[in-house]
């Protein structure tokens, strides 16, 4: 349904954009209807940039984005508006997603004004009621309220409802639960799962591996703008092949296992030293070999890998691709 082919994004820096910084580097992926694909990466990995490009909030530097067979990367005006009828997004910060001076209804009203102007009041209300039901929101509790009166979970649900008012086919969910409280976030996540069963394609962007693992069918691991490993979620998590993926997995805090105590995550030392060696906690020096701070690594890496295309991913098993190691 949605596919990205060799999509790159560079940002201009310096005098009149003389230098550029490659935020997304030759990324290709596809999402099928009824499928949740999670895009996992640390800050600066370009995951949100990809989401924004799909939503056409940022232009694509090179490559193409195809939705239901049509290249949407150059759409403007009417065509873009028609695209938004089918493709929508929800973002990380629910409080910033609403205009604080209006009631939350405003977000819905905008959609109605732009897309559903021909709907009668009654029809609109009927549709709204059914959509709110889908996202498990009690209309009376939520409508007419200001954003700060509602919980993050309610707000995010309402945003999903807003998207559902349209003929939604594809949803970009960019870190939509990372700012929610633990007690409510799982319900929003479950909602995404329910939507997928209705045939929706979902790109779930997150930095939290356990969430990605929980909800998605396929997983893409991103680092410094490039895909390092992707494939069916079970395969990527069950058989991580790229050292970076392994390093990430080993650093995930688990509820029922302490770091280093989980034997299945044992990974061989990673060449290049970009992932930490495993050591018993509490022993002296354990932290001295910790991961180099992301910011510093990023600077170095980027300058090294800016030009040229990356080497293609290698398919190591069915639906499981890994970037060759050695070049980052």
């Amino acid at each position: 349904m949605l596919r990205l082919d060799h999509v790159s994004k560079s940002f201009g820096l310096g005098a009149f954009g003389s230098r550029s910084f490659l935020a997304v580097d030759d990324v290709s992926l596809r999402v099928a209807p009824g499928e949740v694909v999670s895009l996992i990466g640390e800050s600066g990995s370009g995951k949100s940039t990809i989401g924004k490009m799909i939503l056409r909030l940022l232009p694509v530097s090179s490559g193409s984005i195809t939705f239901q067979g049509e290249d949407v990367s150059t759409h403007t005006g009417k065509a873009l508006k028609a695209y938004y009828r089918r493709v929508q997004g929800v973002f990380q910060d629910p409080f910033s997603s609403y205009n604080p001076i209006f009631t939350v209804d405003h977000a819905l009203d905008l959609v109605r004004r732009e897309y559903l102007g021909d709907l009668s009041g009654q029809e609109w209300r009927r549709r709204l009621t059914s959509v709110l039901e889908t996202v498990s929101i009690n209309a009376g509790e939520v409508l007419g309220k200001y954003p700060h009166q509602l919980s993050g979970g309610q707000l995010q649900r309402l945003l999903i409802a807003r998207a559902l008012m349209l003929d939604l086919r594809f949803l970009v969910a960019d870190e939509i639960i990372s700012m929610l409280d633990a007690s409510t976030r799982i319900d929003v996540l479950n909602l995404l799962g329910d939507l997928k069963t209705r045939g929706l394609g979902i790109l779930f962007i997150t930095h939290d591996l356990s969430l990605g693992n929980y909800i998605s069918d396929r997983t893409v691991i991103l680092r410094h703008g490039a895909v390092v490993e992707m494939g069916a979620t079970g395969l990527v998590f069950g058989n991580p092949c790229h050292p970076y993926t392994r390093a990430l997995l080993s650093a995930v805090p688990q509820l029922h296992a302490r770091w280093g105590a989980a034997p299945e995550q044992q990974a061989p030392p990673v060449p290049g030293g970009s992932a930490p060696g495993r050591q018993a906690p509490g022993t002296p020096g354990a932290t001295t070999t910790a991961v180099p701070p992301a910011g510093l690594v990023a600077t170095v890496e980027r300058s090294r890998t800016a030009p040229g295309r990356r080497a293609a991913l290698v398919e190591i098993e069915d639906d499981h691709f890994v970037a060759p190691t050695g070049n980052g």
Partner: protein
Amino acid sequence: MSVQVKDLKVYYRTLRGDVRALDGASFTIADGEIMGLAGESGCGKSTLGRSLIAIDGRMRYVGGSVSLDGAALPLDDQAAMARHRFTAVSLVPQYAMSAMNPTRKIGKLVTDLLRSRGIAPDTVLGEFRRRLELVGLSTDVLARYPIELSGGMKQRVVMVISTLLDPSLLVADEITSALDVSTQKAVAEAVVEFRDRGFVASTIVITHDLSILVQMADSIMIMYAGKPVERASTDAVVSSSRHPYTRLLLSSLPEVGVRYEEHRLSGIAGRPPSLLNPPPGCRFRDRCPLAFAKCAEEPPFVEVAPGHSAACWKA
């Protein structure tokens, strides 16, 4: 009995009245203990952490006491309190990214700070460098401006600064939430390391992320709506919690390996009550699946098993 907190109450002043953000908390932390403090936003965990350091103009000290190694902290006298800060109680704030003066080099900042506290910088700077190296930082950072460091580096520098004078109590407020997984781990491990090396005696780690607490804390206290609801060793909280809130909270957390298709988790319905005028009785009552008539009465926070306290009639 290093840190002893008794019925501490600190409210926020607002136009509509006091918000009872911290409405009576009692607990003790032993020397060398890392206590995790967890709960939803607005549960009072940050207020608690903050009160131990400084009660500012927007907050109101209502009652209770805190004693450190047997000596009471002058919570309601900020001038007197200032003498204890840094040396006895110290803070790694949640805003570590912006905690350092952006226009001062880090070395200068520390020197200024030490001088202002009447400590000759030379006596401490050597140790400062050593500890920087311990957390994996080069001493070059002394000559750098905060902006030149990455988030994880800043977080660690702030940690080293805050613990430089070996305080008896360190409050680490949401120190991992803004970090990436890998950096998060390094920082968490550093907290443990600092304790192991005796840089700090007792530590309170405040976070909303239970799984990170599991990695570093010796004991965990869960708060809800301004009050502690459960306190036990980390293992006890994870494996045999007594309070329904804790249990529901734990069950809503996905872990690597748990998948939607196979095992559908669920959250806790409803929202915490307003602290402006909290209802009497158990504050979790409205959301609690086990609630019964008695819950209209406030359950006491009592020991339900050795080293395990909870505030629930059914605990």
